[in-house]
């Protein structure tokens, strides 16, 4: 490597967020123009370094073919590296840009202060979170959510299923097939679905308003005394998260549908005190003139309040969340259904409480607000996702189901247990203990092929899980990334590639708990294990 003095100026800092990397120009010369006159073969010889081509191959050098190839290559070459944050299992994180991933070199990352790209062993990585919001698919005709045993989730259309394989139509990879034994469940979507929001990526579209006190208590040499509170916005944005710095509101109108899922990563220090108002139109203050719901999250508990227009608040119930007392972060999920008058709270994937409002669904607005009750740094909200919900719960609590007995849930709430023979031409054939039944697919709401006790297949080293904006997850072994395309081998579908623009984040090693630094090997080992 040449000395620093000969390398030119170091790249600027990334504060400001605008990607500043020049794309790698891997242009290939196809030779000069074809103006040297015909060769002995009769084909115009290109000027430059290439030898004359055989007649057969020369036919491939038609201008339109070359134009298509050039365009395809330019797509690869001109895609700027996506900026974001690389997070490690040991808690470290590095801003920068993802240059590439391949099985032999690991993850190539560029940081503004680094002299050259850094190649990280993915074994010690947690995820890559991109600064920008991913593209949302607009032409998805998905009618089914497929959940696989390895944790993959896809939205698509069920084409067929037999004793060996399931065939589905996806929006990003077309028609794919997977071994039937890799599938855990299929839930048929009957209402609106898809993401309404993924972020945050900045403060655009958000309302931030202070409700803090004018004075605070501070310890001093002569005891605690009252001092003026420092004026500041109660919420600030940094690195894909909103961080509370005072008492105040953070609100946004998401145009919530009648059935919605609201998920976010929540981190806190000290006692937790966060109010989440949902289905509200008032984004910058407390207003009890309009119906909404309020979830009061504290250290190890949650309270659900119904805001009744001009009638105050009514306590609908409380739930204990003991796991939250042993840590200071959790993934919170709310599932709201106007049709079912229900509110369901989950923490880290576990259902905490399901409430049903006996007075009907109170929410009259379409927005969400977060209200921090604490002075000073209190909570951080990140990885927020708002999506439509089909009103169905996940396939939990079906431990009796295994591969030899499948469970089919019907629209009239009936359940059928047996061995599914096939799904074809919109008809499901299932062999029960009594008889073989043929059920129109339109009457089926969910098919569970494997219960909670099904073995999760081991993840191959070097696997990466792609998180897509629709909540879909695709695991790829021997994963590659070149800035415009993500590719690899899906253990379910085989070789897969999709545009990098669709990817919300990349997750490495999801099954591994965070390591402390002293548990990590130092360099000297192979790149891939």
């Amino acid at each position, binding site marked *: 490597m040449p*000395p*620093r*003095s000969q390398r030119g100026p*170091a790249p600027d*800092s990334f*504060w400001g967020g605008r990607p500043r990397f020049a794309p790698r120009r891997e242009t290939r010369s196809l030779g000069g123009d074809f103006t040297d006159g015909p060769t002995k073969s009769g084909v115009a010889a290109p000027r430059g370094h290439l030898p004359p081509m055989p007649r057969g191959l020369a036919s491939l050098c038609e201008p339109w073919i070359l134009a298509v190839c050039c365009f395809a290559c330019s797509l690869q070459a001109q895609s700027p590296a996506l900026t974001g944050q690389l997070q*490690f299992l*040991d*808690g*470290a*994180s*590095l*801003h920068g840009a993802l240059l590439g991933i391949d099985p032999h070199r690991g993850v190539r990352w560029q*940081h*503004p*202060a*680094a*002299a*050259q790209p*850094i*190649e*990280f*062993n993915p074994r*010690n990585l947690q995820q890559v979170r991109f600064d920008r919001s991913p593209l949302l698919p607009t032409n998805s005709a998905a009618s089914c959510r497929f959940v696989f045993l390895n944790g993959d989730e896809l939205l698509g259309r069920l084409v067929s299923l037999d004793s060996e394989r399931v065939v589905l139509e996806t929006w990003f990879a077309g028609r794919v097939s997977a071994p039937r034994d890799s599938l855990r469940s299929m839930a048929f979507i009957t209402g609106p679905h898809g993401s309404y929001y993924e972020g945050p990526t900045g403060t655009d579209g958000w309302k931030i308003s202070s409700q803090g006190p004018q004075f*605070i*208590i*501070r*310890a*001093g040499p002569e*005891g*605690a005394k009252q001092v003026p509170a420092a004026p500041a916005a109660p919420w*600030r944005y*940094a690195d894909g998260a909103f*961080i509370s710095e005072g008492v105040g509101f953070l609100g946004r109108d998401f145009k919530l549908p009648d059935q919605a899922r609201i998920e976010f990563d929540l*981190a*806190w*220090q*000290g*006692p937790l005190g966060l109010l989440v108002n949902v289905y509200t139109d008032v984004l910058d203050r407390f207003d009890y003139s309009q119906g909404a719901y309020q979830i009061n999250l504290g*250290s*190890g508990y949650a309270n659900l309040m119904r805001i009744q227009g001009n009638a105050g608040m009514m306590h609908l119930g409380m739930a204990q969340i*003991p796991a939250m*007392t*042993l*840590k*200071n*972060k959790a993934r919170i999920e709310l599932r709201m259904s106007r049709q079912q008058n229900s509110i369901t709270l989950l923490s880290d994937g576990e259902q905490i409480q399901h409430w049903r409002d006996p007075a009907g669904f109170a929410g009259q607005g379409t927005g969400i607000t977060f209200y921090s009750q*604490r*002075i*000073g*740094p*209190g909570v*951080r909200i990140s990885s927020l996702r708002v999506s439509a919900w089909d009103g169905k719960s996940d396939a939990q609590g079906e431990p009796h189901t295994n591969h030899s007995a499948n469970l089919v849930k019907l629209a009239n709430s009936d359940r059928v247990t047996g061995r599914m023979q096939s799904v074809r031409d919109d008809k499901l054939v299932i062999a029960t203990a009594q008889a073989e039944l043929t059920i129109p697919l339109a009457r089926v709401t969910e098919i569970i092929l494997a219960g909670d006790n099904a073995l999760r297949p081991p993840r191959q080293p070097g696997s990466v899980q792609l998180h897509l904006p629709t909540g879909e997850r695709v695991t790829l072994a021997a994963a590659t990334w070149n800035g415009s395309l993500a590719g690899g081998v899906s253990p379910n579908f085989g070789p897969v590639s999709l545009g990098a623009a669709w990817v919300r984040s990349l997750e490495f090693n999801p099954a591994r708990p*965070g390591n*402390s*630094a002293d548990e*990590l*090997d130092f*360099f*000297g080992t192979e790149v891939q294990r």
Partner: protein
Amino acid sequence: MERDSFRTHARESAPGTCVRATAIVWLLVAAQCGFSADATNAPAPAPASSLEFLDGSMLLGALDGINAQTGVRWKHPGVKQPIEFASSNLHQVRFAAPRQIATTAPASCRFRFANGDEVIGELVSLDAEVVVIDSWFGGKLRAPRKELRAIAVNGAGNALIYEGPLNDGGWKFGGSGVVMGGVARPVLINPAAIIGGIVGGDGPRPPATPAWTFKNNGFISTASGTLGRDFKLPPVARVEFDLAWKTMPSMRIALYTDVIDRMDYNAGYQFYISSSYVYLYRRTVNEGGGMVFSATENARVPQMNNRSKVRFEMRINKEKETAALYADGTHVKTWRVSGPQPEGTGILFYSQRTDGSIRVSNLRVSAWDGREEISTPTNAMSETLLHLANSDRVAGKVNAIKDGKVAFAGPAGELQIPLQRATQIFFPSDTNAPPANATGRNVRASLVRGDSVTFTLDRWEGAEVTGASANFGKVTLRVDSVKNLLFNPESPRPPADDLGVWDDSPFSREE
């Protein structure tokens, strides 16, 4: 290999014959239980250092070197070759394992300079132009007198007793574990039956889970239990530590206790921390056999309501019957504790919660000379201000300091004042004159004994770091004397974010 610093020898003497046989028995027992005597006493692997950037990035690893051409070279466990970073975007390097420097160099004074440098050492001489300091890290240092802002003269009794923890050796664990030799071990019903490798009787019970565990240079409690150690505390002492928590702490810290393996509510001074309040208890028995409680007033530490970490400092002066509490360097309260003084010399931490998690780290125990710090004047001064040990103070001019005497020109003429009678000397400052700063990119090295030196770094290789200081000229430091290296000290720092990182990283960002 790092070891806890300790005033007396920490290593046990070689066992005699009977003890040796017992040791063999326990080795066989440990083997049966899958324990290894070496493993239980082996120090934990050194945690990684951290490299922090101005953009908020952070990497764990180890510093490989620094020079002007390649910048900072950082070794990361996930990268084959050291990574080179330009220093212009760096915030700091924090070295995880505190260095222990064996030195007998006296340190009777602390010197503060206009650019923020602080040096602990001996004042050799001071005249109109130059101050000469005998420092433990750089030998004799010469600095322009005009850059000197203050001298704090330490009393004779400020010796460091302990700084750690670097491992769990020497500590006693109580609560849910069985305390033997400082580590929770399995309980054996019939150890005699183990001799010869035959397990008899009821056999060993599964090892109990200690309430406190050592990790990343700190002790973490996830259950109710005690953690104690006999530090041979002198009658006047300071105890400082970082306390971090996930749910509001409920714990007691007993100082001058003679019971270090369980909670004894009658032993020592007991600080009771509950949410953001701190109480001090001293319980004694009066002549009638009843309990007498001293010093039950509480103190409030409001920052505990919206943070997850506070640095506490307790200063005990048994001679004056006072106990003072500091939080994050700010005095919170001083209690007067009259009556019989505790006879013990140990410290005990007792976590009372069974559902939370608290962490104690960066513990520092030292003797204390009983002197309180005096706040540095914030206004520009035209005269030197000399504070004396009898609480007097005089304004005037220091003509010179030599051979332990201060030639002070005051209203009554020139006096020769023994330096040991002074507590602090504040020199006049010209707020219009900028402090001396070396040209080029500065770094500020914080050293293990509390010094800090700003200089232009030339090279960090092997065992030495060299550079040029505006105050002291050429600087050569031992690498293992540096606990923190701050880059670009004039640049604004990224806002600290401790949210959600405590259980993932050994570090939380300092505010």
